[in-house]
């Protein structure tokens, strides 16, 4: 009897072991709540400081945390910082880290980590470089407290530390933060809500994240809002799946193989809107994209402000937006350089952008000394929005009777060639088109394309001391009224000088399985994946 019983137990144990062996490894995963998300690109770089790529920053914000985080209204809120003090002369900021903060390897986050991380960020990111131009020194008071001493009372310290678009000011371990800013860090260990499983990372295909067991969310369960609030991991595991073909990505969402699709193509929105279980969510003006035509201020004819202003008369924003987006629900005509719909949006100088008159454009160009020389335009051939916009501009200029030298090339080549300052005939250029994000463009300091810092500025190299004075003045403004006044003056001056020509703004909604997900976090610039829960 005992033998039979023992034998039965042994057989049962063997059978159970055999079943366990036969079960696919995926069975264990089935118990986990997994968010499968298709984003706009694949995670190929794990250092959000080394590159400005948006996807590297989305990865960065899963793994790392920041001292401050700007909410959807771009107001900075403490994140890793528990308390902070600003001296009466506004020259000394004292930050104290929250209790118990740890990196995903279990080591404590200290002042040294924060200082090293900010110093590296301050050498690489445009906003960081600007902030650190006002920083005299930083010093650790103890393991949790450190001071930032300024040379001048710069008014954008907290906004800069909480910025939400490219190259976010993430806090790394001191060991990684000491890496040269032009070299990518080797490890991705942070104190954010998730940690990356590097052994499961297949660049160009998939990146996997699981909950960081050492993450300490802000107390009080603050509702998440862009980078602010409590970053509660709503799922056990996030798989960022890269699907290069947008039709396949759409089909995968409809079929329920993925839960979240960050940027479906405009053409697919009507199909997704009708798909069962799928919901579209608009992310707002601040998360939108701005189109801009950049003229080269170094060479004729656009070294003459009159020739630059002539170009305004060739631009009918609706033509561009219809070509790029098509559906008026997702675009907005915007006769301004500061994001329309943002707190600082204004109509300073906008009258110049509303007079569409090609004949007048040619007349003004001639008055500026243009005699029909070919104007070199860098025509991108492989960009989903810049390519159609470039074609609209080419047609508008040709119809106006302007002689064009259209140089067709891929976007990577445009990026290389636009850095050349030589005359167009020697490998330079006169015009190229690009885009920028709504978050950066909503703030005169973060909006680098509105700058006119001559040789130190961005491609096209506009040069105007008044514009730079106004941008600096904004950074030191103390009241909202003062900031609005300066923003208006700045936009008026920048439009007069034609730092660039805007052709509207647009934003595409994200799509997700509403039958499975809840808690989608509104964002400004970078998609936020914490807070999303699986039903």
């Amino acid at each position, binding site marked *: 009897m005992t033998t039979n019983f023992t034998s039965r137990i042994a057989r049962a144990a063997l059978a159970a072991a055999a079943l366990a062996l036969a079960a*696919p*490894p*995926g069975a264990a995963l089935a118990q986990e709540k997994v968010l499968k998300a298709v984003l706009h690109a*694949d995670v*190929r*770089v*794990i250092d959000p400081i*080394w*590159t*400005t*790529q948006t996807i590297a920053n989305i990865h960065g914000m899963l793994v790392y945390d920041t001292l401050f985080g700007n909410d959807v209204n771009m107001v900075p809120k403490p994140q890793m910082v528990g308390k902070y003090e600003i001296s009466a002369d506004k020259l000394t900021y004292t930050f104290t880290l929250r209790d118990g903060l740890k990196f995903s390897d279990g080591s404590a986050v200290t002042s040294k980590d924060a200082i090293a991380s900010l110093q590296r960020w301050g050498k690489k990111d*445009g906003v960081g470089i600007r902030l650190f131009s006002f920083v005299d020194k930083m010093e650790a008071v103890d393991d949790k407290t450190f001071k930032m001493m300024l040379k001048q009372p710069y008014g954008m310290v907290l906004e800069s530390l909480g910025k939400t678009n*490219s190259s976010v000011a993430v806090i790394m371990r001191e060991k990684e933060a000491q890496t*040269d800013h*032009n*070299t*990518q860090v*080797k490890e991705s260990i942070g104190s954010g809500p998730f940690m990356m499983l590097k052994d499961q990372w*297949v*660049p*160009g*295909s*998939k990146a996997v994240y699981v909950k960081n067991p050492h993450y300490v969310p802000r107390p009080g369960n603050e509702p998440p809002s862009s980078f602010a609030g409590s970053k509660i991991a709503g799922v056990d595991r996030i798989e960022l*799946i*890269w*699907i*290069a*073909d947008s*039709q*396949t*990505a759409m*089909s*995968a969402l*409809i*079929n329920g*193989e993925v839960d979240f699709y960050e940027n479906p193509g405009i053409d697919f929105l009507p199909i997704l809107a009708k798909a069962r279980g799928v919901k579209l969510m608009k992310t707002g003006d601040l998360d939108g994209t701005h189109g801009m035509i950049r003229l080269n201020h170094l060479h004729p004819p656009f070294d003459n402000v009159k020739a630059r202003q002539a170009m305004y008369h060739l631009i009918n924003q609706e033509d561009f937006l219809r070509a790029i987006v098509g559906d008026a629900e997702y675009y907005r005509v915007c006769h301004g350089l500061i994001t329309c719909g943002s707190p600082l949006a204004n109509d300073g100088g906008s009258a110049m952008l509303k007079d569409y008159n090609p004949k007048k454009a040619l007349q003004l160009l001639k008055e500026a000394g243009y005699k029909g020389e070919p104007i070199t335009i860098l025509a991108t051939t492989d960009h989903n929005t810049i390519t159609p916009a470039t074609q609209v501009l080419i047609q508008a200029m040709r119809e106006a009777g302007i002689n064009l030298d259209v140089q067709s*090339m*891929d976007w*990577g*080549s445009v*990026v*290389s060639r636009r*850095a050349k*300052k030589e005359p167009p005939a020697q490998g330079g250029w006169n015009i190229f088109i*690009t885009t*920028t994000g709504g978050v950066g463009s909503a703030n005169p300091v973060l909006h*680098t394309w509105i700058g006119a810092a001559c040789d*130190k500025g*961005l491609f096209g190299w506009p040069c105007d001391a008044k514009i730079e004075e106004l941008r600096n003045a904004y950074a030191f403004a103390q009241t909202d009224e003062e900031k609005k006044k300066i923003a208006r003056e700045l936009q008026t001056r920048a439009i007069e000088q034609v730092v660039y020509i805007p052709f509207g703004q647009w934003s595409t909604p994200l799509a997700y399985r509403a039958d499975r997900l809840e808690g989608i976090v509104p964002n400004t610039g970078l998609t936020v994946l914490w807070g999303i829960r699986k039903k």
Partner: protein
Amino acid sequence: MTAYIIRRLFATLPVMAVVTVFVFFLLRLAPGDPAAIIAGDDATAADLEAVRAKLGLNLPIHEQFGLWIWRLAQGDLGVSIFSDLPVTRLIAQRVEPTLALTLSTLFVAVSLAIPVGVIAAWQARKLADRAVMVFAVLGFAIPGFLAAYILIWIFAVKLQLLPVQGYRPIGQGFWPFVEGLILPSIALGVTYMALIARITRASMLEVLSQDYIRTANSKGLATKRVLLLHALKNAAVPIVTVIGIGIALLISGVVITETVFNIPGLGRLTVDAVLKHDYPIVQGLIMVFAAAKVLVNLMIDISYAFLDPRIRY
């Protein structure tokens, strides 16, 4: 035979050397700059130069080539410019999906196309033959990506029988592995099936008109025996040649199929690396593809000797 194989293997060395030189310099001549992608839209000329310097892209081109050859001689394909991971690891991650897709496509195509081609030749100018020819024309005419989208729409989105995309390793279970390969194999295999079916038919028609086939039929041998043992074996050399050419075509075909079905194979890796100007990956991949092509050709040549006793090396 052994001497022949060794001779052929040695003959691949100059081929690989030429491929190495061409790949390296063609990539450098192509427009685009990986440093510009890394540095981002707001980067200044100084930023770009700093990134180039860190990546070694500012070195004279002959120095870059020398460094690459030196590493290659030590079996080191370098590291990806973007992910900073070894190219060998990135390629190794992608071999299994591509191999699975290629073999399943070969299996589907060969196991369907040869019988169909044999039947078409046997039933020449009859209904079955005409049906096969219509299929062959359609197979050539329909682009693989279009077939892929149609298959996805019908079998994945509408009927929900099979997944739209992705690859599950065989370690995650046999059925998940197979179900993810069915639609890609059919989409990739359609053209290939059409090609093999036509060649099989043409080759069989020629053999079936030979005197020894008439003799076999006169002896009263069963049709099946005549077709499979006497005719097909003698028609096999051109069929095997086409299968070999087809394997080379598959290498290029997987690029599109892997993209549409989101299979993380070598094809996708190639496209992504080319678009991002990730030179070390592209160089490594082309070396792998070139070696694979040379080896497949060698295997095809060796198989001739087994199929046709008159061929000796």
